[in-house]
């Protein structure tokens, strides 16, 4: 596996009340198709887990990830082969505290949620209420929040660990 790095600086455009310098790092990874990396968990995992996710979602020779460094966390964006975009939020301590996605296909949440997948799966499959319900998904537990919506060919969603959010990060920032 070889890596090339291109680094450039820019300024955040827009919404933040305070202008926050943002460092944009574009990493182009040339990955051998036959490479096998451990399928580390992403949510709760480290930078290496993001690369594992990227490999898992691409399955192709070349891929690109852009890494945006804001004040308190970095966002790693992966364009999956399916057209779905996945963003992974990495804390200053190097742990993934949130993932978000949008695009034509659901991402592999077993891969993206890692150790959180089982509790998510239990919650998402639990039949609740007295009537059949076909509606967007919202799981709001003390240790895990998952939201999935959209329509066929345009899925969107996010998952995060509330206790792991950096102090100045709001749930709305994850998308």
């Amino acid at each position: 596996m070889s890596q090339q790095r291109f680094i450039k600086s820019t300024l955040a455009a827009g919404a933040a009340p305070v202008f926050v310098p943002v460092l944009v790092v574009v990493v182009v990874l040339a990955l051998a198709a036959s490479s096998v990396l451990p399928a580390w968990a992403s949510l709760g995992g480290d930078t290496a887990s993001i690369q594992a996710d990227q490999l898992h979602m691409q399955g192709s020779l070349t891929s690109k990830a852009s890494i945006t460094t804001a004040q308190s966390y970095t966002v790693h964006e992966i364009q999956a082969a399916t057209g779905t975009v996945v963003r992974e939020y990495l804390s200053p301590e190097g742990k993934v505290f949130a993932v978000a996605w949008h695009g034509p296909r659901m991402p592999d949440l077993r891969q993206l949620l890692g150790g959180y997948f089982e509790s998510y799966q239990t919650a998402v499959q639990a039949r609740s209420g007295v009537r059949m319900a076909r509606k967007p998904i919202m799981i709001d537990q003390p240790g895990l929040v998952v939201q999935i919506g959209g329509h066929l060919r345009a899925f969107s969603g996010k998952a995060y660990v509330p206790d792991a959010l950096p102090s100045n990060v709001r749930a709305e920032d994850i998308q």
Partner: protein
Amino acid sequence: MKALRICISLTTCVVCAFLIACGGGSSSSTNPIAPVTTNVAAISVDGGPLGDYPDAAFASVTVCVPGTSNCQTVDGVLVDTGSFGLRILSSALTTVSLTQQTDTSGNPVAECFVFLDSYTWGPVQTADVEIAGEKASSTPIQVLSDTDFIAPSSCTSSGFGSADTLETLGANGILGVGLAAQDCGNPCPASFDQYYGCPSSTGCQPIEQPLTQQVVNPVALFAKDNNGVIVELPAVSSGGESSVSGSLVFGIGTQSNNGLGSATVYTAPEGSLTTTYNGTAYPESFIDSGSNGYFFLDSALTGLTNCGNSSDAPGFYCPGSTTSFTATNQGSGAASGAVKFSIANAETLFASQNNFALGDLGGVSSNAPPYFFDWGLPFFFGQNVFVAIEGASTPGGTGPYWAY
């Protein structure tokens, strides 16, 4: 048991058709509902086969071994304008054995179809599909079964549960009559993990699936009336009704009974429209008869109280009193129109256990961006909603669009 259920349904349909023909039943609806005829199937919002499914419309669909008169009529099939293609529970197909589709290697083909809250899994088989007087010959459909073939982990990676039984689906099948014809794309690559070749029941591997082999909206294969559908349901009184009957009309502007009339066309090239509420535009909104409520925004943006997580209606809204809203829909074109609707307390609505047509049922769509409006089945009560298929020519232009 199954045969008895079908008989009851057919009797009900005949009675419904009679009532509609005689003046529209007891509803205060003002929208015209086409009588059942060759291009019109009866639909009903009645709780479905299990009697636990509010705000869902059901139809009867007949599937036949291709080219034969060996057929079975399946009732309780969910009418879903949010998906594409016919899917029927394996357990509901009791008297016909349809033709298994095979891939280029000669292996049986199975499909994993991921919805927004569940997935369906099972073999792709070919049937002649008959609804009302319309027929779609040699149509690939999905037969839902967790046991004929075993869903591989790439199919279950959404974490969703399967909806392949009556208990989990709440219906005997899904009739996807939405904005698209085929249910994947041209072609459907193996990387999508949607179609699988299955040399053995536990050995399914993703395959690329050409367009013509994909599960398809049967309407697109009809010999005529094949450019879309109209879902016609009467208005529902506040507080809900036990059931209402309506029509699923095939074709747009192809017969005297399916003209656009004064309906506004909302073009939807990406399968979505923009809903504006309280000055904010939500461009990823959509109309979907398969969602069983108005799902929009969250408690903070609507001022509506959420039903408790341990209540009888988690995820729905439970306001102290029925609350009215006005929003504006706009397609990709210039046309726009206001939508007025109301949200009542879902727990109160559900407490009337025999009421399944609930016009004021709603819930949360997301509690953080991206926010959106999911105009579910209550949106269809009291107004005829046209669904034009992608690429199909109609008097209102080329699909995909919604019109109402």
